[in-house]
């Protein structure tokens, strides 16, 4: 009995270009998210510093142009990543069985990315919408939002989701494209945990600080 496995010939260019674009967008999002965390943390230096920074971004139209551009990158990234997300129940079951069977850290990392992605898709979109439809950004308005309580809970959930997704994201990009060699893998993994921890902590301190900005 002759048994054959089907490996159909497929055309490459599209898959390759999509992968390249996915890498570039992913990289852009990582850089953006880390800078975003640092800029928001400027509240720790005082509302004046925060306002001055926000003012700077708006004066040069970085917020007005950058914001919608980011929303576009965000959505494009979603559509590209969606190629990899198992949407059918059968595929989800296969991945889940395989992941559980293997008890393998890097395979889990991907599951973490897919799950956090679903939160980010919805919550990130809401966040971007709320901020961009209420320009200019000021410490006052942000603090008022966070102090309602609802938004505090919202951000407390979104923050670790984003940081875990971004941390796993750059680690995996590094692995896929060989920036992280196998000899440096463990070190990179540790760095990922530390950096992710740092940004979650920074985010928490930032949120705490917003709770104590007196809203005029």
């Amino acid at each position, binding site marked *: 009995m002759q048994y054959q496995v089907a490996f159909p010939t497929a055309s490459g260019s599209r898959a390759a270009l999509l992968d390249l674009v996915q890498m570039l967008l992913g990289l852009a999002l990582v850089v953006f998210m880390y800078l975003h965390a640092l800029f928001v943390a400027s509240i720790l230096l005082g509302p004046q510093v925060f306002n001055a920074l926000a003012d700077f971004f708006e004066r040069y139209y970085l917020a007005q142009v950058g914001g919608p551009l980011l929303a576009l990158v965000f959505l494009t990234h979603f559509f590209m990543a969606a190629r990899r997300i198992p949407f059918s129940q059968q595929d989800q079951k296969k991945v889940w069985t395989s992941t559980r069977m293997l008890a393998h850290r890097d395979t889990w990392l*991907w599951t973490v990315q897919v799950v956090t992605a679903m939160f980010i898709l919805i919550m990130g979109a809401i966040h971007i919408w709320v901020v961009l439809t209420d320009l200019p950004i000021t410490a006052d308005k942000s603090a008022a939002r966070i102090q309602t309580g609802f938004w505090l809970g919202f951000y407390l959930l979104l923050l670790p989701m984003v940081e875990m997704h971004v941390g796993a994201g750059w680690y995996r990009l590094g692995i896929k494209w*060989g920036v992280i060699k196998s000899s440096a893998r463990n070190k990179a993994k540790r760095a990922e945990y530390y950096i992710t921890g740092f940004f979650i902590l920074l985010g928490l301190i930032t949120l705490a600080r917003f709770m104590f900005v007196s809203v005029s």
Partner: protein
Amino acid sequence: MNRKLTFSIFRYNPQETGSSPGMREFRLEETENLNLFVALNLIRETQDPSLQFDFCCRAGICGACAMVINGRPRLACRTKTAELPEKIVLMPLPGFRLVGDLSVDTGAWFRSMNERLRSWIHTDENFDPDAPEVVMDNQVAEEIYELDRCIECGCCIGACATAQMRSDFMGAAAMNRIARFMLDPRDKRTNREFFEIVGTDQGIFGCMGLLGCHDVCPKNLPLQDQLAHVRRKMGRQALKNILPWYKN
């Protein structure tokens, strides 16, 4: 005191009407240096002659005995029971056609994969039996040899979530194999031709970089670095394909 081992083994014979998949338990007293090759043979000899599993070389060379051992794809002949807890769960390697119990048909998969990759040296030079052999640079020869150590056991495919989801994904063994031909100076295929073969979602761009493959390969092949190498090379080729001033 020797340990009493409990083997929980997947049983199913697709050839037999009325057979349904399930786990069966066997007990065996551990002896010194017992490995799974010996243990499974003992079980078959003394407890259940119908148990199916594959072995050939029992020395980690042929790749026939790969199975999922307590959740990890490994070679049974290279696994000592002393490394495992008292309860040992054995499953067939996923992603391949099940022959029965622990036996799967990796051969058909690898044959199809190698045909798809056209795994042979492509050259248009005429072979002259009287000419002295061309000597290959020693370092290149060693680099090729390093990748040629793959025994086609299929562990990397069994450990790859992508391959489980998509049966047309060729997996790390295939990318390692094509990398070997990319290195070989006798193979005259251009990067454009290699791209036609692996610059796809069935090939390197389907890989999500989860590294299950790298972490289970019993021959410790440098799969992580090879996957990245092929991805970079093919990524570059993808750009060249759309830039009109590149002919090749």
